[in-house]
Structures are given as C-alpha cells and as structure tokens.
C-alpha cells in the first residue's frame, strides 16, 4: 500500500541520515585543523623541548591554559627510533603528560611518583619495545619506558609557580628539560 511504502522510505532515509550524522561526529576530532598538535606544529620542531609562551588575555596558544604554570612541549616523532626524555624537578610541582596525535592522554607522571630529583624516561612505540635486546646489562626494569600508541604525539611538561613571583624560577627549570633521540 502506498502509505506503508512512503513510511518505509521515510524510515530508511532517517536511518541513513542517523548513520551519516553519527559517523561524521565521530570522525570530526581527527579532521580538526585547530587541535593542539596543529597549533603547536607551527612554533615547534619535532623532538626538541620548546617552552610555550605564557597565556595573556590578548594572546593564548590554546584555550584554558593555566596562568600559574610554566609550560613546555616536546612534539615527538618516533619514526626514527626511541626518545630519551628528562626534566629536573621544580621546587613546587612538576608534571609530565603524554598525548597521542589525536590528543588522547595515555600516560602522566608527576614529581612525586618520580621519586628522584630528575624525571627520566624513554619514549618508544610498541614495535620498538618488542625489539629491545633481551640480554642487555641494564634491563628494562631499571628504567622507565613509556609506550606511545601513535608514532607522533605531544609531551607536555608543566611546572607550577605557587606564587606569581616564582614564575621565572619555574621557567628556568624547564629550560634544562631534554627531549632527544638516542
């Protein structure tokens, strides 16, 4: 009957529209051109630590940056091998967080969990880790190895300045952070 047929067409169209809508919403973050990685690509080189400018009302690199922190970023690319990363502890609070290419956080460590005066770790992809020689003198258990799900991504280092006047101290701590290929 024509009414039923019309209803079926309408239903089919609605379902198709729903699927297209769902798919495009899920894909959207990957197509974003103003995501953090893209914003940082223009001012950073790969596999080096770059201090980020402090946010001001006129000019902030990313929205909702915390003005009480000195921030530095290492935009990493593990295609040519693992990366060695180290940052000294700042007097108040230091945190290091790791993000995939699509800004999903997969690991974080702060100065308390590090337990020493320097946070030191190696960053590698899953493939590199399985290729680590098994008979090394220093085994994998002695060093902190972070596995990155993607080949490129971001390491964000933040040092807190508990009072406004301590911001230069926090920035100085970050200048000695290292992010380099071995």
């Amino acid at each position, binding site marked *: 009957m024509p009414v039923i047929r019309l209803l079926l067409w309408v239903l089919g169209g609605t379902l198709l529209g729903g699927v297209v809508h769902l798919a495009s919403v899920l894909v959207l973050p990957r197509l974003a051109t103003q995501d953090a990685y893209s914003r940082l690509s223009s001012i950073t080189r790969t596999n080096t630590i770059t201090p980020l400018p402090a*946010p*001001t*009302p*006129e000019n*902030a690199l*990313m*929205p*909702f940056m*915390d*003005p*009480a922190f000195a921030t530095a970023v290492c935009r990493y690319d593990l295609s040519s091998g693992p990366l060695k990363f180290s940052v000294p502890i700042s007097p*108040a*609070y230091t*945190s290091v967080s790791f993000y995939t290419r699509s800004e999903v956080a997969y690991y974080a460590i*702060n100065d*308390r969990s590090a337990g020493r005066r320097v946070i030191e770790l190696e960053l590698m992809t899953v493939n590199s880790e399985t290729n680590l020689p098994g008979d090394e003198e220093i085994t994998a258990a002695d060093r902190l190895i972070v596995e990155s799900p993607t080949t490129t991504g971001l390491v964000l280092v933040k040092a*807190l*300045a*508990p*009072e*406004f006047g301590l911001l230069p101290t926090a920035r100085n701590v970050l200048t000695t952070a290292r992010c380099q290929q071995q």
Partner: protein
Amino acid sequence: MVLSGTTPQARYWTVTLYDPQGSLVANSVQRYGFTSQEIIRDQDGTFELTVGPRARPGNWLPTGAIERYVLVLRLYDTPIGVATRSGRDAPMPAIAQRGCR
C-alpha cells in the same frame, strides 16, 4: 559571585577566570586566578573569593566588562577522581550570588 569554603584535598590547586572562549580576562591589576598558596584564608582554613567587576577586600577576581565567564578549579596531585563519590570525600566550595553594594 562568591566562592567560599574548602576544596577537596590536593597538593596544589588553582582557580582561574576565563571568558566563554577560554581566554583570560584583561584587567588593570593583571590578576587572572589564584593558587592554593596565594589565596588568603580564614583561621579555619576556609577561603572566600569574590568574582566581580568592582574591587573588594580580600580575594577578588576581576571580571572587567564581561558578563559571562567560566571559573575553572584545577586540583593537582589529588586522590579524588571522576569516580569519587561526592560528599565527605570531595568537599567542593559553595557558590553564591551576592548583590552589588
């Protein structure tokens, strides 16, 4: 707008004022937020933070000319998480609106 009380336990926390797009709010005293170390507290450890266009004694976050804003409280190195049941474990500060005087 007045933020008062205590925050959940954390090694440090910061409260920052933003406009709805995520930029800091320009003001003449260049104050954009408070850290847990900077904020002035009462004897029992609670604090009171006033958010508004006119200067107030005590802790004051200037909103300048904007009417809509976002206050972000960030807790660093804290035992609470998304799964913490609110209440005793995560005492949040109270927000109240006070009239202009």
